Protein backbone atom coordinates (compact mmCIF):
# COMPACT_ATOMS: atom_id res chain seq x y z
CA UNK A 1 0.00 0.00 0.00
CA UNK A 2 1.57 3.23 -1.15
CA UNK A 3 1.50 6.37 0.97
CA UNK A 4 -0.50 9.27 -0.36
CA UNK A 5 0.14 12.88 0.59
CA UNK A 6 -2.63 15.13 1.97
CA UNK A 7 -2.69 16.73 -1.51
CA UNK A 8 -3.39 13.54 -3.49
CA UNK A 9 -6.87 14.67 -4.59
CA UNK A 10 -5.45 18.01 -5.77
CA UNK A 11 -2.93 16.21 -7.99
CA UNK A 12 -5.68 14.02 -9.43
CA UNK A 13 -7.77 17.07 -10.24
CA UNK A 14 -4.74 18.59 -11.98
CA UNK A 15 -4.25 15.45 -14.07
CA UNK A 16 -0.87 14.48 -12.65
CA UNK A 17 1.09 11.46 -13.82
CA UNK A 18 2.12 9.65 -10.66
CA UNK A 19 5.31 7.79 -9.82
CA UNK A 20 6.47 5.74 -6.89
CA UNK A 21 9.10 7.54 -4.84
CA UNK A 22 10.34 5.81 -1.71
CA UNK A 23 6.96 4.14 -1.27
CA UNK A 24 5.00 7.35 -1.90
CA UNK A 25 2.58 7.98 -4.73
CA UNK A 26 3.99 11.31 -5.95
CA UNK A 27 3.24 13.55 -8.92
CA UNK A 28 5.94 13.03 -11.56
CA UNK A 29 4.58 15.76 -13.82
CA UNK A 30 1.28 17.46 -14.63
CA UNK A 31 1.88 18.08 -18.33
CA UNK A 32 5.21 18.95 -19.87
CA UNK A 33 8.05 18.57 -17.36
CA UNK A 34 10.17 20.94 -19.48
CA UNK A 35 7.49 23.63 -19.18
CA UNK A 36 7.42 23.02 -15.41
CA UNK A 37 11.20 23.36 -15.24
CA UNK A 38 11.11 26.58 -17.23
CA UNK A 39 8.32 28.01 -15.06
CA UNK A 40 10.57 27.71 -11.99
CA UNK A 41 13.45 29.41 -13.82
CA UNK A 42 11.35 32.26 -15.22
CA UNK A 43 8.20 32.68 -13.09
CA UNK A 44 7.29 30.17 -10.37
CA UNK A 45 6.42 26.55 -9.63
CA UNK A 46 4.51 24.91 -6.77
CA UNK A 47 5.56 21.48 -5.48
CA UNK A 48 4.04 19.02 -3.03
CA UNK A 49 6.91 17.71 -0.90
CA UNK A 50 4.77 16.26 1.86
CA UNK A 51 6.62 12.95 1.57
CA UNK A 52 9.63 14.52 3.32
CA UNK A 53 10.14 13.61 6.98
CA UNK A 54 9.74 16.27 9.67
CA UNK A 55 11.31 15.31 12.99
CA UNK A 56 11.06 17.58 16.01
CA UNK A 57 14.01 17.71 18.41
CA UNK A 58 13.20 19.61 21.61
CA UNK A 59 14.56 19.83 25.13
CA UNK A 60 17.25 21.47 27.21
CA UNK A 61 20.08 19.59 25.42
CA UNK A 62 18.67 19.93 21.87
CA UNK A 63 21.60 21.93 20.48
CA UNK A 64 24.29 19.77 22.08
CA UNK A 65 22.44 16.64 21.02
CA UNK A 66 22.31 17.68 17.36
CA UNK A 67 26.02 18.55 17.48
CA UNK A 68 26.59 14.92 18.48
CA UNK A 69 24.03 13.29 16.19
CA UNK A 70 24.74 15.32 13.04
CA UNK A 71 27.93 16.44 11.30
CA UNK A 72 27.41 20.20 11.57
CA UNK A 73 27.51 22.55 14.53
CA UNK A 74 23.80 23.14 14.89
CA UNK A 75 24.08 24.63 18.40
CA UNK A 76 25.74 27.69 16.92
CA UNK A 77 22.99 28.74 14.53
CA UNK A 78 20.65 31.40 15.85
CA UNK A 79 16.90 31.08 16.23
CA UNK A 80 15.15 31.60 12.90
CA UNK A 81 17.95 30.16 10.80
CA UNK A 82 18.28 27.01 8.73
CA UNK A 83 21.36 24.91 8.09
CA UNK A 84 22.14 22.15 5.60
CA UNK A 85 23.70 19.18 7.39
CA UNK A 86 24.53 15.50 7.15
CA UNK A 87 23.81 12.51 9.32
CA UNK A 88 26.76 10.10 9.31
CA UNK A 89 27.20 6.57 10.56
CA UNK A 90 30.18 5.35 12.60
CA UNK A 91 32.12 4.67 9.38
CA UNK A 92 31.59 8.26 8.23
CA UNK A 93 29.12 7.12 5.55
CA UNK A 94 26.24 9.44 4.74
CA UNK A 95 22.94 8.25 6.25
CA UNK A 96 21.05 11.29 4.97
CA UNK A 97 21.37 14.94 4.08
CA UNK A 98 18.99 17.11 6.08
CA UNK A 99 17.87 20.68 6.61
CA UNK A 100 17.77 21.74 10.26
CA UNK A 101 15.65 24.72 11.31
CA UNK A 102 16.19 26.35 14.68
CA UNK A 103 12.75 27.46 15.84
CA UNK A 104 13.66 28.26 19.46
CA UNK A 105 16.58 28.03 21.87
CA UNK A 106 15.69 24.39 22.58
CA UNK A 107 13.48 23.59 19.61
CA UNK A 108 14.70 22.32 16.22
CA UNK A 109 13.02 20.78 13.18
CA UNK A 110 15.06 18.22 11.22
CA UNK A 111 13.79 17.60 7.68
CA UNK A 112 14.87 14.27 6.23
CA UNK A 113 14.46 12.69 2.81
CA UNK A 114 11.35 10.52 2.46
CA UNK A 115 13.37 7.36 1.86
CA UNK A 116 15.50 7.96 4.96
CA UNK A 117 12.84 9.13 7.37
CA UNK A 118 12.81 5.85 9.32
CA UNK A 119 16.62 5.59 9.41
CA UNK A 120 17.05 9.20 10.56
CA UNK A 121 14.32 8.89 13.18
CA UNK A 122 15.79 5.64 14.46
CA UNK A 123 19.33 7.05 14.63
CA UNK A 124 18.19 10.26 16.34
CA UNK A 125 16.32 8.27 18.95
CA UNK A 126 19.22 5.87 19.53
CA UNK A 127 21.77 8.69 19.73
CA UNK A 128 19.63 10.69 22.16
CA UNK A 129 19.90 8.28 25.10
CA UNK A 130 22.28 10.41 27.20
CA UNK A 131 20.71 13.77 26.31
CA UNK A 132 17.73 15.64 27.74
CA UNK A 133 15.74 15.79 24.50
CA UNK A 134 12.60 14.38 22.95
CA UNK A 135 12.63 13.24 19.34
CA UNK A 136 9.19 13.24 17.70
CA UNK A 137 8.23 12.21 14.19
CA UNK A 138 5.71 14.81 12.97
CA UNK A 139 5.77 13.71 9.34
CA UNK A 140 2.25 12.29 9.21
CA UNK A 141 0.71 15.51 10.46
CA UNK A 142 2.86 17.85 8.39
CA UNK A 143 2.47 18.84 4.76
CA UNK A 144 5.23 20.63 2.86
CA UNK A 145 4.48 22.89 -0.08
CA UNK A 146 7.34 24.58 -1.93
CA UNK A 147 6.94 27.67 -4.08
CA UNK A 148 10.09 28.26 -6.10
CA UNK A 149 11.09 30.77 -8.72
CA UNK A 150 11.58 34.52 -9.17
CA UNK A 151 7.86 35.29 -8.60
CA UNK A 152 7.54 33.15 -5.49
CA UNK A 153 7.69 36.01 -2.98
CA UNK A 154 4.92 37.93 -4.72
CA UNK A 155 2.72 34.84 -4.76
CA UNK A 156 3.13 34.09 -1.06
CA UNK A 157 2.55 37.74 -0.21
CA UNK A 158 -0.75 37.59 -2.11
CA UNK A 159 -1.97 34.47 -0.31
CA UNK A 160 -3.29 36.12 2.84
CA UNK A 161 -0.68 34.65 5.18
CA UNK A 162 -0.04 36.62 8.37
CA UNK A 163 3.72 36.89 8.74
CA UNK A 164 6.56 39.33 9.06
CA UNK A 165 7.40 41.05 5.75
CA UNK A 166 9.11 38.55 3.46
CA UNK A 167 11.60 41.21 2.36
CA UNK A 168 13.25 40.77 5.76
CA UNK A 169 13.28 36.95 5.48
CA UNK A 170 16.64 36.23 3.92
CA UNK A 171 17.99 33.04 2.37
CA UNK A 172 18.08 30.07 4.78
CA UNK A 173 15.87 31.81 7.34
CA UNK A 174 12.59 30.61 8.75
CA UNK A 175 9.68 32.41 10.36
CA UNK A 176 6.42 31.36 12.03
CA UNK A 177 3.24 32.55 10.33
CA UNK A 178 -0.53 31.94 10.31
CA UNK A 179 -2.80 30.91 7.44
CA UNK A 180 -6.56 30.65 8.06
CA UNK A 181 -5.91 30.27 11.78
CA UNK A 182 -3.34 27.50 11.29
CA UNK A 183 0.30 27.82 12.32
CA UNK A 184 2.78 27.37 9.53
CA UNK A 185 6.47 27.84 8.95
CA UNK A 186 7.75 29.87 6.04
CA UNK A 187 11.35 29.02 5.17
CA UNK A 188 13.40 30.66 2.44
CA UNK A 189 14.94 27.38 1.33
CA UNK A 190 14.67 25.08 -1.65
CA UNK A 191 16.18 22.58 -4.02
CA UNK A 192 15.95 24.33 -7.36
CA UNK A 193 18.70 26.95 -7.54
CA UNK A 194 16.11 29.74 -7.56
CA UNK A 195 14.79 32.04 -4.89
CA UNK A 196 11.92 30.28 -3.20
CA UNK A 197 10.07 29.21 -0.12
CA UNK A 198 9.10 26.03 1.66
CA UNK A 199 5.88 26.11 3.69
CA UNK A 200 5.35 23.60 6.50
CA UNK A 201 1.69 23.39 7.44
CA UNK A 202 -0.62 20.96 9.30
CA UNK A 203 -1.74 18.24 6.88
CA UNK A 204 -5.44 19.09 7.19
CA UNK A 205 -4.82 22.68 6.05
CA UNK A 206 -2.60 21.81 3.08
CA UNK A 207 -5.32 21.63 0.45
CA UNK A 208 -6.67 25.06 1.26
CA UNK A 209 -3.18 26.60 1.20
CA UNK A 210 -2.32 24.92 -2.12
CA UNK A 211 -5.57 26.05 -3.74
CA UNK A 212 -5.09 29.60 -2.50
CA UNK A 213 -1.53 29.71 -3.83
CA UNK A 214 -2.69 28.21 -7.12
CA UNK A 215 -5.41 30.86 -7.46
CA UNK A 216 -3.32 33.91 -6.55
CA UNK A 217 -0.33 32.51 -8.45
CA UNK A 218 -2.12 32.35 -11.77
CA UNK A 219 -1.30 35.94 -12.72
CA UNK A 220 2.36 35.29 -11.81
CA UNK A 221 2.70 32.27 -14.08
CA UNK A 222 2.69 29.76 -11.21
CA UNK A 223 2.65 26.19 -12.43
CA UNK A 224 2.30 22.91 -10.52
CA UNK A 225 5.56 20.97 -10.82
CA UNK A 226 6.33 17.30 -10.28
CA UNK A 227 9.38 15.31 -9.27
CA UNK A 228 10.70 15.17 -12.87
CA UNK A 229 11.19 18.94 -12.95
CA UNK A 230 12.47 18.92 -9.37
CA UNK A 231 15.21 16.50 -10.40
CA UNK A 232 16.43 18.48 -13.43
CA UNK A 233 16.27 21.73 -11.43
CA UNK A 234 18.40 20.40 -8.58
CA UNK A 235 20.82 18.80 -11.03
CA UNK A 236 21.39 22.12 -12.84
CA UNK A 237 21.90 23.75 -9.44
CA UNK A 238 24.58 21.16 -8.62
CA UNK A 239 22.71 19.81 -5.62
CA UNK A 240 23.26 16.14 -4.73
CA UNK A 241 20.37 13.68 -4.45
CA UNK A 242 20.41 11.07 -1.71
CA UNK A 243 20.60 7.60 -3.24
CA UNK A 244 22.38 8.92 -6.35
CA UNK A 245 25.30 11.06 -5.17
CA UNK A 246 25.00 10.43 -1.44
CA UNK A 247 25.01 6.93 0.08
CA UNK A 248 26.35 5.20 3.16
CA UNK A 249 29.32 4.13 0.97
CA UNK A 250 30.49 7.74 0.54
CA UNK A 251 32.30 9.98 3.00
CA UNK A 252 31.33 13.66 2.93
CA UNK A 253 34.71 14.66 1.47
CA UNK A 254 34.16 12.40 -1.55
CA UNK A 255 30.87 14.15 -2.25
CA UNK A 256 32.49 17.58 -1.95
CA UNK A 257 30.70 18.13 1.36
CA UNK A 258 33.77 18.18 3.60
CA UNK A 259 32.98 21.72 4.69
CA UNK A 260 29.57 20.61 6.01
CA UNK A 261 31.37 18.58 8.67
CA UNK A 262 32.33 20.79 11.60
CA UNK A 263 35.58 19.11 12.62
CA UNK A 264 36.43 22.19 14.68
CA UNK A 265 33.49 21.71 17.04
CA UNK A 266 34.20 20.47 20.55
CA UNK A 267 33.33 16.98 21.58
CA UNK A 268 32.60 13.81 19.74
CA UNK A 269 30.01 13.30 17.04
CA UNK A 270 28.95 10.20 15.18
CA UNK A 271 31.37 9.57 12.32
CA UNK A 272 34.09 11.92 13.58
CA UNK A 273 36.93 9.38 13.75
CA UNK A 274 36.22 8.11 10.26
CA UNK A 275 35.95 11.61 8.77
CA UNK A 276 39.23 12.65 10.42
CA UNK A 277 40.90 9.57 8.95
CA UNK A 278 39.45 10.56 5.58
CA UNK A 279 38.71 8.49 2.50
CA UNK A 280 41.31 6.23 0.86
CA UNK A 281 43.69 8.20 -1.33
CA UNK A 282 42.25 6.69 -4.51
CA UNK A 283 38.61 6.87 -3.39
CA UNK A 284 36.35 8.31 -6.13
CA UNK A 285 35.30 11.96 -5.92
CA UNK A 286 32.15 13.64 -7.15
CA UNK A 287 32.56 15.92 -10.16
CA UNK A 288 30.39 17.71 -12.66
CA UNK A 289 30.55 16.79 -16.33
CA UNK A 290 29.44 18.80 -19.33
CA UNK A 291 29.19 17.54 -22.88
CA UNK A 292 28.16 18.83 -26.28
CA UNK A 293 25.24 17.66 -28.37
CA UNK A 294 21.99 16.35 -26.96
CA UNK A 295 22.74 12.81 -25.78
CA UNK A 296 22.86 12.71 -22.02
CA UNK A 297 24.83 10.43 -19.76
CA UNK A 298 22.54 8.88 -17.18
CA UNK A 299 22.86 7.18 -13.83
CA UNK A 300 25.04 4.07 -14.13
CA UNK A 301 26.79 5.03 -17.38
CA UNK A 302 30.57 4.56 -17.34
CA UNK A 303 33.11 7.38 -17.56
CA UNK A 304 36.39 6.88 -19.42
CA UNK A 305 39.66 8.75 -19.76
CA UNK A 306 41.23 7.41 -22.92
CA UNK A 307 40.61 3.66 -22.77
CA UNK A 308 40.62 3.55 -18.98
CA UNK A 309 37.41 3.23 -17.01
CA UNK A 310 37.70 5.98 -14.38
CA UNK A 311 34.21 6.36 -12.96
CA UNK A 312 30.45 6.22 -13.20
CA UNK A 313 27.65 8.74 -13.70
CA UNK A 314 25.24 9.12 -10.75
CA UNK A 315 22.81 11.66 -12.28
CA UNK A 316 22.57 13.11 -15.77
CA UNK A 317 20.23 14.85 -18.16
CA UNK A 318 20.10 17.15 -21.11
CA UNK A 319 20.01 20.43 -19.18
CA UNK A 320 16.71 22.14 -20.07
CA UNK A 321 18.11 25.59 -19.26
CA UNK A 322 21.60 25.23 -20.73
CA UNK A 323 20.67 23.07 -23.73
CA UNK A 324 23.60 20.65 -23.40
CA UNK A 325 24.13 17.45 -21.40
CA UNK A 326 25.21 17.73 -17.77
CA UNK A 327 26.01 14.99 -15.30
CA UNK A 328 27.33 14.22 -11.86
CA UNK A 329 29.84 11.39 -11.63
CA UNK A 330 32.17 9.70 -9.19
CA UNK A 331 35.62 9.44 -10.79
CA UNK A 332 39.15 8.55 -9.73
CA UNK A 333 40.85 11.60 -8.13
CA UNK A 334 43.49 11.68 -10.89
CA UNK A 335 40.73 12.29 -13.47
CA UNK A 336 38.75 14.79 -11.43
CA UNK A 337 39.94 17.83 -13.37
CA UNK A 338 40.32 16.26 -16.79
CA UNK A 339 38.82 17.93 -19.83
CA UNK A 340 39.42 14.75 -21.85
CA UNK A 341 36.81 12.44 -20.38
CA UNK A 342 34.09 10.50 -22.20
CA UNK A 343 30.74 9.08 -21.14
CA UNK A 344 29.75 5.72 -22.62
CA UNK A 345 26.22 6.43 -23.82
CA UNK A 346 24.91 3.00 -24.76
CA UNK A 347 28.06 2.06 -26.65
CA UNK A 348 28.94 5.49 -28.03
CA UNK A 349 31.65 7.57 -26.34
CA UNK A 350 30.49 11.16 -25.83
CA UNK A 351 33.36 13.58 -25.02
CA UNK A 352 32.90 15.30 -21.66
CA UNK A 353 34.84 17.73 -19.50
CA UNK A 354 35.05 17.96 -15.73
CA UNK A 355 33.56 21.13 -14.30
CA UNK A 356 32.72 22.71 -10.97
CA UNK A 357 29.21 22.98 -9.50
CA UNK A 358 26.77 24.53 -10.02
CA UNK A 359 26.06 24.09 -13.72
CA UNK A 360 23.47 26.85 -13.51
CA UNK A 361 23.52 29.90 -11.24
CA UNK A 362 20.70 32.40 -11.13
CA UNK A 363 21.42 36.04 -11.79
CA UNK A 364 21.58 37.91 -8.51
Amino acid at each position, binding site marked *: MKHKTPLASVHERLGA*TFTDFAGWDMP*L*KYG*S*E*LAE*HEAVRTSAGIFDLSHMGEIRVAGADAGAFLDFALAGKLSSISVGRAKYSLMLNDSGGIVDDVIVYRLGETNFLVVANAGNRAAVLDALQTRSSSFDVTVTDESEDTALIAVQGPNSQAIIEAAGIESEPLDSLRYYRVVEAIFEGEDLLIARTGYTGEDGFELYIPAHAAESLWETLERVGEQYGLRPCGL*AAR*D*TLRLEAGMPLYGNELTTDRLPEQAGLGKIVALSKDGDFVGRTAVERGPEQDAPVLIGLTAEG*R*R*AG*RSGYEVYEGDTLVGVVTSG*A*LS*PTLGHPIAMAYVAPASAESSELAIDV*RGKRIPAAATNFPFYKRKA
Partner: protein
Amino acid sequence: MAELKYTPDHEWFRFEGDVATVGITDYAQNALGDVVYVDLPEVGSTFSGGEAIGEIESTKSVGELFAPAAGEVVAVNETVADDPTLVNSSPTGDGWLVQLRFTEEPELIDEVAYGELTS
Protein backbone atom coordinates in the same frame (compact mmCIF):
# COMPACT_ATOMS: atom_id res chain seq x y z
CA MET B 1 -6.26 6.87 -44.46
CA ALA B 2 -5.36 3.35 -43.47
CA GLU B 3 -6.12 2.34 -39.91
CA LEU B 4 -3.30 2.04 -37.41
CA LYS B 5 -1.83 -1.24 -36.22
CA TYR B 6 0.25 -1.57 -33.07
CA THR B 7 2.84 -3.57 -31.19
CA PRO B 8 2.75 -4.17 -27.43
CA ASP B 9 5.96 -2.05 -27.39
CA HIS B 10 3.74 1.02 -27.98
CA GLU B 11 4.62 1.58 -31.62
CA TRP B 12 2.05 2.31 -34.31
CA PHE B 13 2.16 1.34 -38.01
CA ARG B 14 0.24 2.81 -40.94
CA PHE B 15 0.58 0.74 -44.12
CA GLU B 16 0.31 2.26 -47.57
CA GLY B 17 1.04 -0.54 -50.00
CA ASP B 18 4.07 -2.39 -48.64
CA VAL B 19 5.53 0.61 -46.79
CA ALA B 20 4.70 1.25 -43.14
CA THR B 21 5.01 4.65 -41.49
CA VAL B 22 6.05 4.06 -37.87
CA GLY B 23 5.96 6.08 -34.68
CA ILE B 24 5.32 5.74 -30.97
CA THR B 25 1.84 5.98 -29.49
CA ASP B 26 0.30 8.79 -27.48
CA TYR B 27 0.45 6.50 -24.46
CA ALA B 28 4.19 5.97 -25.02
CA GLN B 29 5.02 9.65 -25.47
CA ASN B 30 3.13 10.49 -22.29
CA ALA B 31 4.94 7.81 -20.32
CA LEU B 32 8.30 8.88 -21.73
CA GLY B 33 7.83 12.60 -21.06
CA ASP B 34 9.19 15.49 -23.10
CA VAL B 35 11.27 14.07 -25.92
CA VAL B 36 14.58 15.90 -26.33
CA TYR B 37 16.45 13.69 -28.78
CA VAL B 38 15.70 11.04 -31.38
CA ASP B 39 18.31 8.82 -32.96
CA LEU B 40 17.07 7.39 -36.27
CA PRO B 41 18.59 4.74 -38.56
CA GLU B 42 20.08 5.47 -41.97
CA VAL B 43 17.89 5.25 -45.03
CA GLY B 44 18.66 2.03 -46.88
CA SER B 45 19.88 0.18 -43.81
CA THR B 46 18.43 -3.24 -43.14
CA PHE B 47 17.37 -4.80 -39.88
CA SER B 48 16.17 -8.08 -38.45
CA GLY B 49 13.04 -8.73 -36.43
CA GLY B 50 13.28 -7.52 -32.84
CA GLU B 51 16.27 -5.27 -33.54
CA ALA B 52 16.43 -1.80 -31.98
CA ILE B 53 16.65 0.63 -34.90
CA GLY B 54 16.30 3.94 -33.09
CA GLU B 55 16.21 5.69 -29.74
CA ILE B 56 13.82 8.22 -28.30
CA GLU B 57 15.24 10.15 -25.33
CA SER B 58 13.30 12.24 -22.87
CA THR B 59 14.67 14.26 -19.99
CA LYS B 60 14.06 11.28 -17.73
CA SER B 61 14.57 8.15 -19.78
CA VAL B 62 15.38 6.43 -23.04
CA GLY B 63 13.02 4.41 -25.19
CA GLU B 64 14.07 2.18 -28.06
CA LEU B 65 12.34 1.79 -31.38
CA PHE B 66 12.06 -1.91 -32.18
CA ALA B 67 11.53 -3.39 -35.61
CA PRO B 68 8.79 -6.02 -35.29
CA ALA B 69 10.09 -7.96 -38.33
CA ALA B 70 13.02 -7.93 -40.76
CA GLY B 71 13.15 -5.30 -43.48
CA GLU B 72 14.67 -2.10 -44.78
CA VAL B 73 14.51 1.58 -43.83
CA VAL B 74 12.80 3.50 -46.65
CA ALA B 75 12.72 6.98 -45.09
CA VAL B 76 13.34 8.80 -41.82
CA ASN B 77 11.60 11.92 -40.53
CA GLU B 78 14.33 14.58 -40.63
CA THR B 79 11.88 17.16 -39.26
CA VAL B 80 11.41 15.24 -36.04
CA ALA B 81 15.19 14.82 -35.71
CA ASP B 82 15.42 18.63 -35.69
CA ASP B 83 12.36 19.12 -33.50
CA PRO B 84 11.84 16.08 -31.23
CA THR B 85 8.92 17.79 -29.43
CA LEU B 86 6.77 16.70 -32.41
CA VAL B 87 6.79 13.22 -30.88
CA ASN B 88 4.89 14.67 -27.92
CA SER B 89 2.64 17.12 -29.75
CA SER B 90 1.72 14.88 -32.68
CA PRO B 91 2.81 11.29 -31.99
CA THR B 92 0.70 9.72 -34.77
CA GLY B 93 1.02 12.66 -37.19
CA ASP B 94 4.01 14.94 -37.76
CA GLY B 95 5.90 13.07 -35.04
CA TRP B 96 6.27 9.89 -37.13
CA LEU B 97 9.80 8.46 -37.01
CA VAL B 98 10.59 6.12 -39.91
CA GLN B 99 9.12 4.41 -42.95
CA LEU B 100 9.91 0.71 -43.22
CA ARG B 101 9.45 -2.01 -45.85
CA PHE B 102 9.27 -5.45 -44.28
CA THR B 103 10.59 -8.62 -45.88
CA GLU B 104 8.59 -10.76 -43.48
CA GLU B 105 5.14 -10.34 -42.00
CA PRO B 106 5.22 -8.43 -38.66
CA GLU B 107 2.89 -9.56 -35.90
CA LEU B 108 0.72 -6.55 -35.11
CA ILE B 109 -2.40 -5.98 -33.04
CA ASP B 110 -5.41 -3.80 -33.81
CA GLU B 111 -6.61 -0.69 -32.02
CA VAL B 112 -9.02 -2.57 -29.74
CA ALA B 113 -6.35 -5.01 -28.56
CA TYR B 114 -3.85 -2.19 -28.05
CA GLY B 115 -6.43 -0.16 -26.15
CA GLU B 116 -6.95 -3.08 -23.78
CA LEU B 117 -3.21 -3.25 -23.14
CA THR B 118 -3.00 0.37 -22.06
CA SER B 119 -6.27 0.72 -20.14
